[in-house]
């Protein structure tokens, strides 16, 4: 969708001017604002949540409180506020990991060119033959009670080949340009050319890709929770909440619908943000 191959028009765009350009995109501003509000909602849980994360507030599936109670009688609103923390943290870390690894692979493939490029991208295609959730599930088969870092690595690893393809596309448009050739002619080290000349010119499209990846990370992490592969089964987690309270969907729908709406709003916001970034990076200056 946002697989833009267009390099940014400016030779050295500063990130703050890019941010200002993105703010001119209505959908970016909207998505960005909603995301910030949600992050605040989640992070302020210890101060504003009416009950603790594992505190019993009443009978199971009762109507007490704003959104009622869940299958153990815990307050749904409090669980909702706490439940975003782990999803948010795991998603952001997984996105960061996937972006770093993917960008490295993509840029190295584009910069090396020729045979290396062919081999790296063929290997990449193999990984792309796995739907993202499948890659995580296959590894989880042999693991009992996965730790948080396992989920982070799995989600990040499933992003990496997709990021690599985009990064390679963007980098291909840059590696042949004059300032890169000039840097090479001056005898700069390869790693320095990549870090100082190629990467800074890819910020726009890569930021857009990061936004998109964050959207998918949230979906994936929540999906794994929904399937029952959560890291800590007692802790609040939006994905897990859906599974736990699915039984009472007809009598106490908020236990399921509230976390579902949170994920929906969150992913819509980050996706709008990503699309706004993509448009801003395509427009150049």
């Amino acid at each position, binding site marked *: 969708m946002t697989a833009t191959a267009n390099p940014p028009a400016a030779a050295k765009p500063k990130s703050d001017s890019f941010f200002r350009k993105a703010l001119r995109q209505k959908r970016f501003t909207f998505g960005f604002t909603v995301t910030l509000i949600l992050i605040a909602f989640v992070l302020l849980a210890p101060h504003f949540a009416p009950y603790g994360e594992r505190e019993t507030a009443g009978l199971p599936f009762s109507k007490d409180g704003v959104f009622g109670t869940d299958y153990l009688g815990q307050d749904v609103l409090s669980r909702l506020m706490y439940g975003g923390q782990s999803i948010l943290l795991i998603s952001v870390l997984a996105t960061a990991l996937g972006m770093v690894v993917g960008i490295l692979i993509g840029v190295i493939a584009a910069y090396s060119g020729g045979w290396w490029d062919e081999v790296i991208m*063929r290997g990449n295609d193999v990984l792309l033959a796995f739907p993202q959730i499948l890659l995580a599930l296959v590894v989880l088969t042999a693991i009992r009670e996965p730790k948080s870092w396992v989920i982070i690595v799995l989600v990040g690893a499933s992003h990496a080949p997709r990021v690599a393809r985009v990064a390679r596309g963007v980098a291909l448009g840059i590696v042949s340009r004059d300032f890169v050739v000039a840097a090479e002619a001056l005898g700069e080290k390869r790693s320095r050319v990549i870090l100082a000349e190629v990467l800074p010119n890819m910020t726009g499209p890569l930021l857009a890709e990061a936004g998109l990846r964050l959207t998918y990370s949230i979906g994936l992490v929540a999906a794994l929770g929904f399937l029952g592969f959560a890291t800590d089964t007692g802790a609040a987690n939006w994905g897990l909440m859906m599974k736990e309270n699915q039984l009472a969907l007809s009598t106490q729908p908020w236990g399921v619908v509230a976390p579902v709406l949170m*994920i929906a709003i969150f992913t819509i916001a980050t996706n709008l943000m990503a699309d706004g970034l993509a448009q801003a990076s395509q427009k150049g200056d």
Partner: protein
Amino acid sequence: MTQVATLPDPLEEVAPPRGHSGGAAWALWLLRRLGLAVLTLWLVSVLVFVATAALGDPVRAILGKDFDANVARREQLQGLLNSDHSLVWRYFHWLGGLLSGDPGTSLANQQPVWGQVSANVVNTLVLVLLAALVMIPVAFGIAMISSHYRRKRPDTVIQTILLALAGIPEFVIGILLVSVFSTSVFHWFPAVSLPAPGERPWDQPKAMVLPVLTLVLAVAPYVSRIVRATLLEVLDSDYVELARLKGIPENVVMRKHALLNAIVPGIQVIALQLAWLAGGVVLVETLFNYPGVGFQLVDAVRNHDVPMVQLLSMIIAGVYVLVNLVADLLSILLTPRARTAISS
């Protein structure tokens, strides 16, 4: 993925040239493409095997605290997985079994896995094909409406809705549909499909509605956005302008001149989405209790049933590779310029 010319030059298109000695070139292209598909599948098999057999200990995962206590059960499971052999031996043993139709024994019920998947494969194929049959006309229709009103109000509204839908995970869409149409607001459709033994899920058509609708809503936004982008590009081209100047009505221009040229990029994105569906059904099937490969896969992963997971992931990856192959072939056949490029 093969790069195909998205917009064939209209002048070349007047008489689609077919190569005279194209046969050999065609065979060569097909052979190369098939070879690539086989190579991909082989690398996929290595990846699946390493991920399931080498990264953790499935027997320990199944038995948990019983691992030390229940020696008999442990040795039985290790025997089924050939744990006393080296990893390389086990890989080739498994690969040989996979190719000869004996990919192992389920750790959950000690039956060969091969016989347990066929019904589920058919169920999933039916679900995905139904979703595709509904999704393709809907996506193209929305794209046509949207590009007809380009950058006016209806277009902006449609695009914003599509963009919002594109971000939401498919199981979230599914749960929202269930709560609206099944449990809380309306009570039109059942929330889960529960076919009786020996019954197929489509014997209860009402139970198929929500799973199909969920998949359509998850996939249509992507297809629609790509087709719209292509349509807009075509509508700006010279020969569409010429057709308009000749006085051809706008709806004929849209149908005959623009839409036909948007089909090839459409096929590519539909193929990608169909392949994605092969994995996306995992969540949707679990949500609706639909007895397909995705449902079975989640069950197998929960039970740490390694041979079952290996077979199911190979099937899903195989479908992906096959769909891409067919899409490439169709794109080449439908693009005159790419066709001549190969045969000349």
